[in-house]
């Protein structure tokens, strides 16, 4: 860089530096809150995933060779927490009106004890939920992309894509699962594979659930991708074809890379939905998260506390998913192509 340009940039920078207000105590407080919040979120994430991973690894490996309490058994005993809850609630009675917060503490200790007790079951259920969600989403995506392309560029063939999408979106997911599970002879066919339901391989209900979610999700994803395809300017494909790329190559190398970037926010939405929709697999006996919780609750009748804990696990999964997708979005971001860049400045900046 020459001296001349140095001088101009310096003079350009000067007035800005002069007018920029010094950070006030409020700003500093706010940014330290932000940092603390961020740290807390990271910590919570580490605890959540640390717990899940430890649980899975233990159940798969150590429990099988007879180390520790055994597969599906809690590492810690809930007894001390239960004792604490009991003594707190009896103490709360003797404090009169002041005993109310103590009563809350007692409930919290009770919930913690319950958490320790049903944690292993929830962790196993979470494994099914995660595998179900991720594999259905990925497989659904593989169907959705050609479906959306057919819908937008397919000429007369687009009616096929439209019919598929509308049929799938227009009927309840639970009904689709029931048709696949009870209506079709899929279970007999799947059971012919000797590996299904043995060892690590889940039973046929699980595979039928993946099929159902894949079909259902593909229709929704196709709609998201279609919307994003239509966002990409027509001239992009024209320019690609003018260079000598075929229509297919133009879509593959020019239109799709832009489309998928536009589609990430909607796709995140589908992922979040699917994490929770996957609970419908419980209705066809897949032992996923909701199924486990419901199973325990119906025998202990502690619905409120168990579903409260269940909600925490779902929340952990959903927040992790949105964070990961946020990272992906930032990772593949291109200047000028979608994103929230430049739209979140303070109004007086």
């Amino acid at each position: 860089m020459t001296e001349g340009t140095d001088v101009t940039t310096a003079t350009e920078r000067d007035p800005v530096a002069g007018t920029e207000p010094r950070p006030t105590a409020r700003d500093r407080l706010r940014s330290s809150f932000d940092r603390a919040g961020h740290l807390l979120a990271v910590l919570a994430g580490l605890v959540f995933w640390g717990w899940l991973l430890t649980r899975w690894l233990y159940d798969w490996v150590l429990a099988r060779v007879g180390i520790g309490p055994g597969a599906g058994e809690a590492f810690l005993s809930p007894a001390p927490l239960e004792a604490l809850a009991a003594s707190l609630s009896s103490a709360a009675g003797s404090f009169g009106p002041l005993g109310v917060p103590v009563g809350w503490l007692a409930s919290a200790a009770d919930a913690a004890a319950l958490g320790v007790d049903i944690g292993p079951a929830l962790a196993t259920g979470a494994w099914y939920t995660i595998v179900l969600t991720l594999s259905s989403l990925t497989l659904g995506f593989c169907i959705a992309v050609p479906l959306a392309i057919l819908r937008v560029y397919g000429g007369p063939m687009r009616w096929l894509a439209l019919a598929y999408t509308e049929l799938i979106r227009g009927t309840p997911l639970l009904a689709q699962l029931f048709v696949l599970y009870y209506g079709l002879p899929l279970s007999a066919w799947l059971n012919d594979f000797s590996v299904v339901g043995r060892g690590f391989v889940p039973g046929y209900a699980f595979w039928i659930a993946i099929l159902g979610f894949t079909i259902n999700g593909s229709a929704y994803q196709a709609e998201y991708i279609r919307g994003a395809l239509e966002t990409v300017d027509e001239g992009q494909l024209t320019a690609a074809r003018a260079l000598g790329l075929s229509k297919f190559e133009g879509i593959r190398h020019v239109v799709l890379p832009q489309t998928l970037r536009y589609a990430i926010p909607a796709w995140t939405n589908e992922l979040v939905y699917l994490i929770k929709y996957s609970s419908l697999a419980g209705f066809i006996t897949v032992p996923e998260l909701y199924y486990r919780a419901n199973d325990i609750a119906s025998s202990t009748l502690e619905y409120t506390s168990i579903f409260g804990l269940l909600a925490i696990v779902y929340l952990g999964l959903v927040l992790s998913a949105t964070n990961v997708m946020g990272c992906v979005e930032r990772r593949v971001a291109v200047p000028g192509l979608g994103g929230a860049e430049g739209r979140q400045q303070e109004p007086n900046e």
Partner: protein
Amino acid sequence: MTVPRTNDGDGRTADEQRGDGDERTASPSSATAATDPLLRIENLHKSYGAEEVLRGVSLEIDRGDVEVLVGPSGSGKSTLLQCLNRLTEIDSGHIYLGDTEVTASETDPNEIRQQIGMVFQDINLFAHLTARKNITLGLRKVRGMSAEAARERADSELDRVGLADQADSYPAQLSGGQKQRVGIARALAMDPEVMLFDEPTSALDPELSNEVLAVMDELVDEGMTMVVVTHEMRFARGAASGITFLADGQIVERGPPDRLFENPSHERTAQFFENISHDHD
């Protein structure tokens, strides 16, 4: 006609490229091409629904010529350009590039489009790719060049349009004029025989238009065959070997710029130039 392709990673000078062209016309296989026009359009018809946009257009353009198409909006200029590389399919008529019939059903349009570069009014740079990758995409996927050769070629084309320092910028980070110069470089990198310009400066501020026109002037000097739809009468006057005035899908008048500007034989032409000069003053 297929162009003998060399690996162009070395960034040949314009003179060398012209040399290639001369060899080609002198080669025995196309000995007649020296006298034949490079681009021949015969009795072209095109309708969109009930509206006939081109009504029997015939035009011959020699190698090295710069033909400027002018005319009121809706006269069919842009459609004519899009028919030349079959981005729009015609209803009837013939188009020949050298001795290849562009419009023949057995002609692969993707093959033809490699030999006809196109620059758009809306520029249409690939929004997700850097300036360099906008150029390498065609070289890699269509010409099958290695990544290294394509990159070198792209950089030399960017240098040619004065944007060597913007190779890693995304379209959104470039000015309109810079974008259009990348658009020209992207088309040039494919070694086209003809360059089509569809109102290349219409979307740009006058200031930015000039940097694009400067690049086009250089191409004219290098002897590139060009068909240009534009309202830039200064460019037409200075660079065109012929001006074709179209109205209502037909060629009203064609001739060298001096005659058409100074002494048009049709009232319609005179009126058009009159209106244009008022608009631009």
